[in-house]
């Protein structure tokens, strides 16, 4: 499978079940409060999965040598839920500025991970040390972001 298709397929694997779950709830809910809660929860889950998806996609990023190709992969990973996020914003469930911030932050995180990994691979480290450092980065950065997500006003706390 071509690389862009692989990124989109990964995105669809997390997005389509969440979309189906949201639509099922929207079909059965009545009243603005329930709709808002459903959409907010859906967007929260999407962000959480996006964080881990981005981190787990690092091996594929490392196969790229040009930053532009990494950006394309990242966009394909993040883009599928955007219409649902627009709907959540329109319904007043989440703040548009926060959504934009998180998508930009995830793009930045992907690039940062790619850059750090490439730097590590160039260092004269043993293969075990390199692997350990890579694994730590892939887990630590998403964990820090995830910890902050719950405390973010208007999204995690709402």
């Amino acid at each position, binding site marked *: 499978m071509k690389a862009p298709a692989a990124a989109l397929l990964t995105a*669809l694997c997390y997005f389509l079940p969440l979309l189906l779950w949201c639509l099922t709830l*929207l079909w059965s809910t009545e009243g603005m409060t329930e709709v808002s809660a459903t959409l907010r929860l859906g967007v929260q889950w999407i962000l959480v999965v996006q964080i881990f998806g981005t981190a787990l996609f690092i091996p594929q990023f490392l196969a790229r040598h040009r930053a532009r190709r990494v950006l394309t992969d990242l966009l394909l990973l993040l883009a599928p839920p955007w219409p649902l996020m627009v709907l959540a914003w329109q319904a*007043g469930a989440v703040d548009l500025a926060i959504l934009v911030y998180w998508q930009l932050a995830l793009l930045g995180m992907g690039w940062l991970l790619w850059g750090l990994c490439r730097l590590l691979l160039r260092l004269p480290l043993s293969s075990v040390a390199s692997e350990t450092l890579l694994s730590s980065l892939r887990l630590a950065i998403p964990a820090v972001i995830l910890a902050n997500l719950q405390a973010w006003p208007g999204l995690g706390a709402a």
Partner: protein
Amino acid sequence: MTGGLALGLLWLSGIASAAPGLTVTPAWDGNFVPGRSSEIRLQFSSPAGGAFQLNLTTPGWVIRYSGVVEANIGTDLSLPIYPAPGQPVQIQLQRAGQPPLRQTLVFNHRAEPLQAWVVPPGSSPPSAARGQVPVSVGMLPRTSEGYGGIASLSIPSSQLSQLDSRQLDALDDYLSGCKPLHLIDTTQEVVDIIKSHAGCGGRHIEISGPVASVGQPKPLPGASILDRLLPATDQSYPRLAILYFVGYAVILLFGLLLSGRALVLLSIPVAASLALPALAYLGATPPRLVTWMETEAGDSSARYTALLSVDGARREQLSLPLDGIRNLPTSSASSSNVVSIDGTRDQTRQLLIETQPFSTAWYLFSGTVRLTQPLALTGSVHLPQITNSTNTFTPSCLLSWSGEIHQIPPLRPGEHWTPTEQSRSARHDPLTGLLGSRSGELALLIPYNLPVEAFGNASREGWLLIRADRS
């Protein structure tokens, strides 16, 4: 640094709270009944004149008034307000080229509706019992909302001539709403004039006995009952949104199968995100309004209650004109309750509603309107007769007679109709249920929309109930 800022803010707030040149007087000495409207009177002037904006903010409502004041000429405004128990009313006056004036006002809430009586000038007010409020004639409300918490009003006949035109309009609305009025030291001529303006055949006008003996009008149906009579809607936006996302998922999958090019794959979610707001225009439905009016045969006014329901399809601020509506909503379920009053355009009122997809805001209005009854209900309870007293055909109506519903066919101008065995209807729906519960022995129900220009392009349904019996 922080201390300096705090001192500066303190200095600023000190100026603002002093509010020189702004006099604020609450109606009924600041007494109000929670959930009922009241009134606030504001008097101020401006040395330079020009445009001004007034904001009255309570926990549930914001009233925005914009107007123009002439230089050094005092302005006297009376505005509606919904005070809340224990919460001050925030008043902000912004005049052109001058710093804003801010003032807060705390109302005293009373559990029971108030009994007001007008004390003539020069006479000392007797000691007021609980729930009673003595006022001077000049302090009577100038808006219909000002009488929101009043259960009864006693006024010496001699004081009626002291009322200005705005006070007379407000009192006229009070009387049309079948609210009790006790006329003191009056003449038959005055009573006849007052009764001609009153609803419910003038039965709520008392001239001899205590005002407490006068009954309150039967409350009109509430929001939960009117909700069942709202014009039907297909709730198109939620369905459209779900179909949209199902289609979007299918296109994404096809894109994945048919094309591996990143640009093509990326364009699908981007285009779907940009097209989503356009979906709102397809799924938008106009506001819906249902009105229930009640009057008695021969009356020239009717009490009404109207439920306005606004289904949101996109984020926007909807501005609905309230032309002809003299009372603000008595209750609502909305994320924002803002009323804008334009003092430069004959006190034009607008209801500003924040809408969002999937949201429904509703507002319940009540008040009185002047009208001409399109059908005359005559005869007796034993054999009623309906006459088309207009110059046009009347629509098909319902007659409730001795517990049974009869269907009245469309009538030509001047045509008479009497119920028969064949006209009896077996119809059972929320409308006939409501008719049966409100009609008494004999009543006529006519499809009749609220005769006002308000609510813009709202889809409307309305009914006028004309009772024959004085129950």
